């Protein structure tokens, strides 16, 4: 080894994605002030950016767990659809059914996460194929049983999407709680430490006595649970779920993009939940900016693809490794 490296454990430093977040924020502010309609820096606009981030943010926090463990979850978009539909279908507009609906969709979510984890670890199926398969399967059952918006959520349930807590919208509180819990689990629990170890090098982790299978299964259960939270939020926001809401939001690929833009390595072992939050906020800021510049949805999409590539390139380009 060359020069001695000072290996102080780095703690609580903000991930580099926040630098991009600050850059995106300032850039959007300047561009909108120069060329856009209205002001960028208004309380309403900032709140809007956060509210926009809620649906993607919650599932992206969960996706961070799968990716950090060196796995991936393509089934989240379909699970979001299943959750949204089942929530409004069971609730049928009656507040008395809220608890039952939530219990059912949470049970479905935990089951799907468990199934994903078991297929990946016990049947040794590549996570991409495993979750693609379970996603197709869920969507198949869902689209066969429901062709349109099903039932309705109770008016009381819509608080989840439209309520406020003082000046703060409830959805933003929800996102904050999910991010805080995610960060807590990832950085302050034994499971979190094990997940980093498994994602860094599964074989080494296994030889050091970790039950790597169990760690990955729990990670997938967390990912699926976060998709259920997003599904509940979408049902509350739309008033009912339809079998296409998850795919329409492209939550599978968007959540993966947010995670990697936030600095989590696709190969696993490096990154964290806070970076993911930054990734999600970057997307929302860009959305808000393009809206105010009036450029339309398609140009936004063109840029988004390049932003994903550029952000990840900024973390990876110094690497000497071969990547496939």
């Amino acid at each position: 080894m060359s020069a001695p490296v000072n290996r102080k454990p780095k703690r609580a430093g903000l991930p580099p994605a926040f630098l991009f977040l600050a850059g995106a924020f300032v850039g959007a502010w300047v561009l909108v002030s120069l060329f856009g309609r209205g002001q960028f820096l208004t309380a309403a606009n900032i709140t809007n950016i956060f509210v926009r981030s809620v649906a993607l943010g919650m599932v992206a926090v969960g996706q961070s767990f799968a990716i950090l463990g060196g796995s991936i979850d393509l089934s989240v978009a379909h699970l979001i659809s299943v959750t949204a539909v089942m929530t409004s279908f069971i609730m049928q507009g009656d507040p008395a059914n809220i608890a039952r609906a939530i219990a059912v969709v949470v049970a479905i979510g935990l089951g799907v996460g468990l199934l994903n984890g078991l297929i990946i670890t016990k049947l040794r199926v590549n996570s991409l194929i495993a979750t693609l398969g379970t996603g197709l399967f869920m969507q198949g059952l869902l689209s066969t049983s429901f062709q349109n918006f099903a039932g309705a959520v109770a008016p009381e349930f819509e608080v989840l999407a439209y309520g406020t807590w003082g000046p703060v919208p409830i959805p933003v509180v929800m996102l904050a709680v999910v991010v805080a819990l995610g960060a807590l689990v990832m950085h302050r629990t034994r499971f979190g430490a094990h997940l980093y170890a498994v994602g860094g090098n599964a074989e080494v982790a296994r030889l050091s006595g970790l039950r790597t299978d169990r760690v990955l299964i729990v990670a997938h259960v967390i990912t699926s649970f976060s998709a259920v939270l997003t599904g509940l939020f979408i049902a509350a926001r739309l008033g009912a779920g339809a079998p296409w809401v998850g795919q329409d939001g492209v939550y599978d690929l968007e959540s993966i993009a947010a995670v990697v833009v936030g600095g989590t390595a696709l190969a696993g072992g490096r990154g964290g939940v806070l970076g993911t939050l930054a990734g999600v906020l970057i997307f929302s800021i860009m959305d808000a900016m393009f809206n105010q510049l009036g450029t339309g949805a398609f140009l936004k999409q063109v840029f988004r693809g390049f932003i994903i590539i550029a952000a990840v390139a900024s973390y990876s380009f110094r690497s000497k490794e071969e990547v496939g």
Partner: protein
Amino acid sequence: MTDERPATVQKPSPSAAGRRWWETLRRVPPIFVVLLVICVWISFLNPRFATVPGIMSFLMRAAPAAILAAGQLFVIVSGGFDLSVGSLITLVVLGSSMLIGGDPANTPWVIAVMFLIGIAVGVFNGAVTSWLKVPSFITTLGMLVTLKGFALLWTGGAPRGALPNNFRVFGRNRLSGVPLLDEVPYAVIILLVVAVVATYLLHRTGWGKQLIALGDNPRAARLSGVPTAKVRILAFVASATSAVIAGILLGGFSGVSTNVGDGQELGAISAAVLGGAKLLGGRGTMPGAIAGALTLQALFTLLNLLGWPKPLRDGLQGVIIIGAVAYTAWRERRS
């Protein structure tokens, strides 16, 4: 490798010949058996399937997916993914209809432009992955988003215009007067050419061997002198080129629409995996990948005949790809 035949063949005794037959049979990848079983089943339900015209129509419908799977396999054996092919198909279909603008005289140069766009996309995917070290899953995911956005930006979000007959001929017309077969769809001829060229490139050239070496162990490949960047970029160019061909066929077969390419990338990856390719590289055969795509198409045909609604067919596809990969993993562990 399947090409480990002895150089000199001794005159076999009958029982030895039988054993050799059995050995050869056992080496047939399971996907071909599955494909055969499904095809026989379809023929029982619909005797017209087992006729020459029936097989030709089946191959014509399967051709775009099979070509796409062949292209995808180059990237998969190198250890990568190409998620951008679906959006590239959409771009080819929408872009062609925009550029041709109803004048059939434009078709030849528009097709040339589409191939140039495809090559540019492939070079970009490969170069970003090789030199900026962005995992190809992310590079091509970014391209998926960008190309779809670009295609929709170009047409204003709705399918515009129509493709002239001399463009659509590749996807929907047949060459008549072929001896023995009577009529052969152009798509089937194109599929055949692609299959032969792709099999040759992957299994009979130095580039193909370097590609497999790269996917098997990237560091070892680089240290033993494989020009990894060049090899990988060519793989992405092959995949993008296959998407352009598939786009031309799909545009001909089903006309202009904005979602023609949606999900095609996952179908191609599934087909390659069904055909025995290993994700993250190092193993895969071209005949297997093409058979994988044909099997998926045959399965859809079968389930359609059995009266399954489309969503359930998709659902079963999910179960089948998991089952196939789990079976391969199980066989590998046992041996």
